């Protein structure tokens, strides 16, 4: 169990920067998710933590000890790979025992420890099988037991659920979380799946192009994303583009590209004439036949209505953009083609400077 710290860590490959100037402190026992689109540097970060490759700059500390130059086999880490990487020429038992054998642990101690680890992942009865005789979920659990049995300082999980089918993935997600809590091990979990990260992790690190975009709990990041990228990566988000035309008490007025004006909460640095993006979560808007007396309303036409189980997803054409919203299933949905108003309270949306926009 350890506190993990990255200080100004960077990794450059020939012709590409994979991770740049990353600093992060992971307290002991935390379950941290590294989240981002493919190529964002999350897997590179995991490889750096494991010691599979050296960082170009910066250092990595485990419990305040610099491990930057220490090879993986001396780091005391547990790694679960996306492909599980079970040794095909060994039984389940021998796979799990491998790390203990490398630590020269006598059979008298080794056998009960392996059995206990297999019990934790509910695989006690399969110890004589080979990995090819196991299902994907079972292989995944062997990989987890193999990583946990050595009582590593840090557990590193590289997309461990992505090769499982949807229902098993959901089950394993909570199971991993439950085991992690019980063992109390510092865990770094790499995933591109935001719902996986939100369900399992204490804190999320959202990465893009090798840079940390935001660090926080799922709720913090969902409710106050640092930028439009994070907003659309964590959960669904409609991005409305426009220009700030006026600033008033606590609000900015934004003229959208379809020539309608909406209110958004004022944000430090917002100024008149600035190109802006207004982020609106699908569940924060409603559909109305008439514009309400207060709040934002923009006219649109219903493009599609699809039932997603508990909620209905409605696509609305606004100008040249399509905005999607979700409404409770109980409500009578509008018909496709119907002209309606999209309404929401100004406090429900978020204002950002448009990173690609030229200020006019």
């Amino acid at each position, binding site marked *: 169990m350890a506190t993990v710290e990255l200080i100004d860590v960077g990794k450059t490959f020939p012709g590409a920067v994979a991770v740049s100037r990353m600093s992060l402190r992971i307290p002991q026992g935390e379950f941290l998710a590294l989240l981002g689109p493919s190529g964002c540097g999350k897997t590179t970060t995991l490889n750096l933590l*494991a010691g*599979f490759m050296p960082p170009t700059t910066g250092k990595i500390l485990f419990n305040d000890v610099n491990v930057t130059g220490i*090879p*993986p*086999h*001396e*780091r*005391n*880490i*547990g*790694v679960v*790979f996306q*492909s599980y*990487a079970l*040794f*095909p*020429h060994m039984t389940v038992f021998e796979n799990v025992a*491998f*790390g203990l054998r*490398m*630590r020269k642990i006598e059979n008298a101690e080794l056998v009960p420890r392996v059995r206990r680890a297999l019990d934790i992942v509910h695989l006690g009865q399969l110890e004589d099988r080979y990995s090819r005789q196991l299902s994907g979920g079972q292989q995944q659990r062997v990989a987890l037991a*193999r*990583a946990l049995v*050595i009582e590593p300082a840090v557990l*590193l999980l590289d997309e461990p659920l992505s090769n499982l089918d949807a229902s098993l993935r959901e089950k394993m997600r909570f199971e991993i979380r439950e085991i992690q809590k019980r063992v109390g091990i510092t865990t770094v979990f790499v995933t591109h799946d935001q719902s996986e990260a939100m369900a399992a992790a204490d804190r999320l690190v959202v990465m893009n192009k090798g840079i940390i975009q935001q660090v926080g709990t799922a709720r913090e990041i969902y409710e106050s994303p640092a930028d439009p990228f994070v907003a659309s990566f964590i959960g669904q988000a409609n991005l409305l583009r426009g220009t700030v035309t006026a600033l008033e008490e606590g609000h900015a007025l934004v003229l959208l590209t379809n020539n309608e004006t909406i209110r958004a909460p004022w944000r430090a640095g917002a100024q008149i004439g600035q190109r802006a993006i207004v982020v609106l979560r699908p569940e924060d808007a409603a559909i109305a036949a008439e514009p309400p007396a207060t709040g934002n309303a923009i006219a649109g036409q219903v493009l599609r209505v699809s039932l997603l189980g508990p909620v209905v997803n409605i696509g609305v054409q606004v100008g040249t953009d399509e905005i999607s919203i979700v409404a409770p299933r109980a409500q009578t949905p509008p018909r496709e083609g119907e002209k309606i108003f999209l309404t929401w309270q100004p406090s429900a949306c978020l204002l950002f400077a448009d990173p690609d926009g030229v200020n006019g």
Partner: protein
Amino acid sequence: MISDRIRRWLGIYAGVICLLSVLPVLVIVIESFTASDYVVFPPKGFSTKWYFAAAQRREFLESAGLSLVVAFLSSCVATILGTLVALALVRHRFFGRAILQALFMAPLSLPGIIFGLALLQFLAMHAIPRDIFAVATGHVVITLPFAIRFITVSLAGIAPELELAAQSLGADRWAVFRRITLPLIRPGFAASLVFAFILSFDDVAVALFLTTPTSMTLPVRIYVYIDQNYDPLITAVSAVVVIAAFLALAVMERTLGIGRLFGLR
């Protein structure tokens, strides 16, 4: 799926090919039982006298022993060297890797007879004696490309994560190699040993230049004998070699399983 009809035809096809490759050898074996003093097919009469005659010629037995030793030495050395080369070529990216790769495969395209001549000149220039070690060295050179190929294919089939996983569990480089890499390339390793052994045991072209009357491998001994006198004694010697090879295969199949050895099952 393959239908039963196609399966039957495939079976017949495979049978015919097997028969065609074995028949000429079978002819030699049958000829060796002739009672005549010259090689003829079908044999005239039945006699085992040529086997007794061959048994009188100690030089064939000595040559067979020598060939086995040379084949054993060269296949072991070629397989170990091949493993080291393949590890470097597959696991590392370095300057000149592509050139090295081509260089290691070069002996494949070189006629053995020219290589034998070159090696002979080299040995003569440096006053190195022509003995079984010279022959074994020549055979290492011609079998090394095969060893490298077999091991490379096996190595390339190992997911890199397996070695990383072992490292993360506390295995140093040597432990990773011994506990993970080596067991997983065993099929290629075995194929390399067997194939190099057979190539070495069969070789005439290279050995022709490197052997002396006191250290002559069996194929060269047979070749030299035929050159001077073509009598059924040589068919008896050949038959013994064929039968020995079949026995060796049968023993390997029973004890190791040839298919498993080559990773086919």
